[in-house]
């Protein structure tokens, strides 16, 4: 038995508007791409060959699903015409459908399957035709019946159209509540109703209320409250004291401090009300923002750029350091890890040139430190453990005039750690150097 999955762009145009960078078939439903639910059902029905058809681009799906080997199936791709009905689909894929039984899953619909039940009897049902349908499509059997693989009668199969954000949200929440007892869901779960992905950091003072699903690479900071009924995607940071309840936080989203999100969908800097469809694009990136994926190549590129900048600073400051360091040492004005007081001419010059940071620069060459990131020299690193902490010679907070208090500095550092670019870091390092002159020698 084989399966044709046919999705027309017109069926999921609304999802394209909500998630413009993601193919609607890859839109996460309880942290699992939508297409995987369709594939799961086809596999439960005993199909080992599946063809995905669309009148839109499929390259993103092909990149994700590849040849289907991860599911132990053979997955192929083809295209359909927007006017194609089921008979045309069968005709255009005649070689694939061959002479056996074919299941056609058409439309952008959610299939209410149960992984514990046996759907292989679909192969041997005598009559072809729709076994389930809804306004947005159907599950249709075509071709002659095949020998029965099971004695079990066909379990009920439901089909729910996913035709707007409201239905998307409702289905996601139902799937979350039903949990892994019915669907194959990602993440590890020590107890029912809670699934947690890989590389997730949860603060001791954060609370998780079931049901909740948390994706990969997630940081939940102190005081945050997750759930009940919260779906947190991958590459998400929930900052201190924020509450996420009956909401979906999509991938690559930063939720700022002390926010209360209830009954909403958050995607990067956009907050959506699924009931009314109203969207709100937040302008303040400290409240709600997108997170750039931390690609390995970017990390390497950043290290190279920072190392070059550190080498240049080491070279430029070597002579002033060689002269002033012994002098300040002898006068007892130099203390490792502390700022240089503005007491005299030598101290002022050393302070203006940021010579107190000079001993840290070799750490950038070895990759232990970044040229700019989170401050380490004032013992603040302990409060900043995690992926957004980048121990460094200079601090992002030193580039901002307003970040005077510890908490202000922490916000600035966390924001720039997530949003800065390697070349942008160099500009910010220069800014930090200038600011240090200005704030140490106000005239």
């Amino acid at each position, binding site marked *: 038995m084989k399966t044709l999955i046919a999705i027309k762009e017109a069926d999921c145009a609304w999802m394209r508007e909500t998630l413009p960078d993601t193919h609607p078939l890859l839109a996460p439903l309880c942290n699992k791409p939508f297409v995987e639910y369709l594939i799961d059902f086809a596999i439960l029905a005993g199909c080992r060959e599946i063809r995905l058809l669309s009148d839109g*681009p*499929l*390259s993103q799906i092909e990149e994700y699903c590849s040849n289907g080997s991860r599911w132990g199936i053979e997955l192929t791709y083809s*295209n359909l015409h927007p006017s194609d009905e089921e008979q045309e689909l069968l*005709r*255009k894929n*005649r*070689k694939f459908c061959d002479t056996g039984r074919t299941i056609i899953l058409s439309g952008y619909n959610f299939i209410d399957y149960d992984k514990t039940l046996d759907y292989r009897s679909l192969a041997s049902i005598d009559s072809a035709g729709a076994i389930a349908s809804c306004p947005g499509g159907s599950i249709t059997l075509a071709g002659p019946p095949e020998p029965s693989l099971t004695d079990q009668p066909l379990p009920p199969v439901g089909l729910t159209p996913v035709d707007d954000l409201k239905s998307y949200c409702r289905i996601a929440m139902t799937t979350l509540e039903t949990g892994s007892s019915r669907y194959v869901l990602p993440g590890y779960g020590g107890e029912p109703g809670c699934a947690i992905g890989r590389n997730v950091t949860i603060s001791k003072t954060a609370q998780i209320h079931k049901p909740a699903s948390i994706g990969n690479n997630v940081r939940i900071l102190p005081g945050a409250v997750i759930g009940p009924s919260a779906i947190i995607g991958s590459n998400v940071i929930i900052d201190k004291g924020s509450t996420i309840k009956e909401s979906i936080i999509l991938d690559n989203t930063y939720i700022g401090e002390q926010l209360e999100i209830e009954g909403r969908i958050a995607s990067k800097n956009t907050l959506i009300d699924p009931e009314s469809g109203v969207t709100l694009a937040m302008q303040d990136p400290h409240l709600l923002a997108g997170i750039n994926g931390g690609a390995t190549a970017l990390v390497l590129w950043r290290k190279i750029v920072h190392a070059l900048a550190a080498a240049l600073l080491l070279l430029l400051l070597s002579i002033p350091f060689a002269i002033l360091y012994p002098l300040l040492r002898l006068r007892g004005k130099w203390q490792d890890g502390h700022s240089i007081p503005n007491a005299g001419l030598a101290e002022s010059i050393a302070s203006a040139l940021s010579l107190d940071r000079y001993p840290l620069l070799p750490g950038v060459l070895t990759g232990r430190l970044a040229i700019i990131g989170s401050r380490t020299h004032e013992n603040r690193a302990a409060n900043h453990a995690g992926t957004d902490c980048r121990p460094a010679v200079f601090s992002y907070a030193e580039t901002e005039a307003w970040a005077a208090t510890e908490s202000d500095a922490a916000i600035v550092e966390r924001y720039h750690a997530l949003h800065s670019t390697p070349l942008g870091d160099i500009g910010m390092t220069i800014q930090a150097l200038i600011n240090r002159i200005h704030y140490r020698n106000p005239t």
Partner: protein
Amino acid sequence: MTITETLSSGITIVELCGTIDASTAPELQRHQAISDPTQTIVIDLARLDFLDSSGLGAIIGAARRKEESGANMLLSCMNQKVRRVFDITGTVRLFHIFDETAAAIDYATTLRKSQ
């Protein structure tokens, strides 16, 4: 590029082999069955190794002219490399694409009868 033309059930099948790029696209445009706007044809792409934008433009231009005069151009046996070109350019919506030539011929015959 090699163009082979055969006839089946009164439908012309044009098989394209090799490469269609800027240097060979004009030859494709001049081909009689392809350039004739009144003739419904099936283009078999199974042995087409490479298709660039000029080749795609030639195919789309010919298909548009045929459609305007009530004829059709059907595509069959598209391999993954060629399908990728149609996919990324968003031109798949313009064509009826079949996974075997015989099915395309049947479809073309049905279309001709219904006209």
